[in-house]
């Protein structure tokens, strides 16, 4: 019999993880909006009232106030559930297959704690045991079988600290997984969706354009440029070349080191998408930025409608991959 997982115990967990400011909160709100709009069977709900409020609040800010959600220092305490279509019995494709209970995938979010300890922090800091954030991230990652890793190319242009943010947690995670006997094929058991965020930024779009990585969906009335998942790895690689520190290349190496190639997928993501003129309703190469910068002390705002790009896709990919795995709670 299928277990009937309680609301508190999803089948699987996804950890959203990225440097502060990499776009996690915005991505979550955009995900909510995109799922609400889409015909997919997936939806996202808060795991508790506070988490639901958080989601609604951030989504409203994005939609109404055209404000980017404010950074939240305590977001680790919020959890959401991605509720998928009903699980099916093994005969997935068979018409006779009967729907089972829906897939439940928990989502937790963590700021990568790289700000507190980097290579400059010294050996004791590198140990990280004293950093509660790292512990929380590791707990979160250990609990999860799906990871949404947000790679912020803009931050990488200017700070170039993505590698610092990811390497230590991955090493520690591998350590824990090895101890738990979960390092079966020599790699972490996780699926990881690497989201290159802020794809709408001219510098990112231009990089994709130069590498001829852009495609347009024939069905897309707005003709928004996209990068397919197949090409997103190349975009990621290309963006790594212009990293401020030059260590971004190692991010790719670390990913290959820790994750099985079948379990890595790249996405060129934009939570806000491109600006589309209300009259022409077409993407315009001359004018596509969807952000209005704020005055010195203010945040940027969103200019036109949101047109999230590759926001739902990483979740669905993870959702489908994880749904195909037997829930960890049953065995």
């Amino acid at each position, binding site marked *: 019999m299928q277990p009937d997982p309680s609301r508190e115990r999803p089948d699987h967990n996804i950890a959203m993880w990225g440097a502060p400011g990499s776009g996690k909160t915005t991505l979550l709100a955009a995900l909510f909006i995109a799922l609400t709009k889409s015909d997919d069977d997936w939806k996202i709900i808060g795991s508790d009232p506070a988490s639901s409020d958080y989601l609604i609040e951030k989504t409203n800010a994005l939609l109404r106030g055209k404000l980017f959600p404010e950074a939240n220092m305590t977001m680790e305490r919020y959890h959401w559930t991605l509720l998928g279509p009903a699980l099916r019995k093994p005969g997935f494709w068979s018409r006779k297959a009967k729907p089972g209970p829906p897939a439940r995938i928990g989502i937790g979010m963590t700021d990568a704690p790289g700000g507190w300890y980097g290579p400059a922090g010294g050996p004791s800091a590198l140990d990280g045991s004293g950093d509660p954030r790292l512990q929380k991230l590791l707990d979160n990652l250990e609990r999860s079988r799906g990871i949404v890793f947000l790679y912020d190319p803009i931050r990488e242009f200017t700070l170039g600290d993505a590698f610092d943010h990811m390497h230590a947690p991955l090493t520690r995670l591998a350590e824990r997984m090895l101890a738990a006997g979960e390092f079966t094929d020599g790699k972490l058991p996780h699926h990881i969706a690497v989201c290159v965020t802020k794809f709408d930024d001219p510098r990112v779009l231009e990089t994709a354009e130069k590498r001829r990585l852009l495609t347009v969906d024939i069905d897309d009335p707005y003709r928004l440029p996209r990068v397919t998942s197949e090409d997103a790895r190349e975009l990621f690689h290309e963006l790594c070349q212009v990293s401020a520190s030059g260590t971004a290349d190692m991010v790719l190496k670390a990913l290959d080191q820790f994750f099985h190639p079948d379990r890595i997928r790249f996405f060129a993501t934009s939570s806000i998408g491109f600006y589309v003129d*209300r009259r022409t309703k077409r993407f315009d190469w001359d004018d596509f930025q969807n952000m209005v910068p704020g005055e010195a002390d203010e945040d940027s705002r969103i200019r036109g409608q949101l047109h999230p790009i590759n926001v739902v896709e990483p979740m669905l990919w993870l959702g489908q991959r994880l749904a195909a795995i037997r829930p960890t709670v049953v065995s």
Partner: protein
Amino acid sequence: MPEPDRDLSRKAIAQALADLADTDRLTLVEIAADGVTTFLLHRDDNGRPRGRSWSATWPGLAGERGWGTHPAETREAVLRMARAASSTADVMLVAASSADPQVEQALAWLRAAHPAAQVLRAEAPIAALIREVIADDPLTRSYELIVVLVDSDTSRPRLTSRQLFPLGSRPGARTRVALRCEAAGAHGTAFAVVTWQGPKPRLLSVQSAPVAPGRYEVTAELVRPGRVRFTGLPALSPDPRGWDQLVAALPDRLAGGSGPAHLVCAVEVCGADDQVAERLSRARQMISSASGELGGLLRVSLLAYAAHSYDPSAPEFPVRIAAWEAGAGEALNALGALEERGAVARGYPYHPHAAQLEDMLAVVVERLGRADPAPAVILTVGGLPPHPARTDQSRILPCPHRHDWRKLLAALRQRQGTVLGAICDQPADQAHQVWHRIGAAALAHLEAVDVRGLAADLGLVASSPVHLPFPLLDETE
């Protein structure tokens, strides 16, 4: 052959003078009844013939004991009279036709010493003849008047010369020139005649007078070589200044008073209140300063521009043409209204990092294009860069109207007599690079601008009371 005819002598001397090259000398030795006179002729730097002479009586040449006592010494004395004549110089011997033995003896000695010398026979003393020939010598250089030409783009004056008398002109020749005179300072306007030999002009004469500014129909008359008389002007007197002194008196730029001016002031009216007030007050100072000196000759246009809106629910403040080619008073009133209104278009969704500079340029280009290509000074007062025509590296959102500031600025720079100046919020070394183009002729800092100096740099007013030492060629002729 000796030739007694006065006209023939005159012709012969005139011909020898005409053949006289710049560096050569012509020696005329007159052997007359009372003694020997030598005339040495040459051309000066202006090609004008000059002469000097010296003479000795027969007793003076022969010594105390008289003609014939020491013929060798007397011969020496006679030959020494023509001493300045080197072997290459032309020598002419002019002898009285009387059968005076002293004359004949002296002539014989001189002919032997200068076998190539032409010999003339003349009765009257030839000094008058030589003066006549010199006075009637046709010009061997063209005589030109120094005038000022003003470059219409930069309003920089430069010197040039206008021909008065061509080569070969003779005394009595006249030429008419239309000239314009400006205020000229203590020495007055200088009417300098030069000749050209190589790249440098040679000053022939400078006469000057305090001439009231205005247009003059002047007639120049060649009185004699080296002397030009001007009529149609107040009485001129010789000017003691040399060429270098005159040239040094030429200003870098022409006075604003040289013609009517159109000042286009464009002010950025978004941003902090006190910043906007400061910009408007600078525009006020500029208009007041220029109008104080140009009076009714100044036309003023005043534009205000702010930031673009990037949300259709918030109104756009389009470029405001507060005044166009108005009098200074009217423009200052319009400025008052802008001051009262203060800063507009602040905060979201108005772009905080750029302003409608490109829209303002589009209005100016369009408006100036309508009128005659009259000179204009465009003074932009602001701090923000323009919006690009399309998304670019600046990541500033593109102008909703897709105006291209680069093209518009290029159009203004190509427009005749258009000067671009700017007062920027930031000092030049910190100003956005666009401001160096918007203030191509002069870029000042809002907090430290010397408004009077800026007006002068833009050619709107004189840098100091400007004096033009020379007349201008009147091209409206």
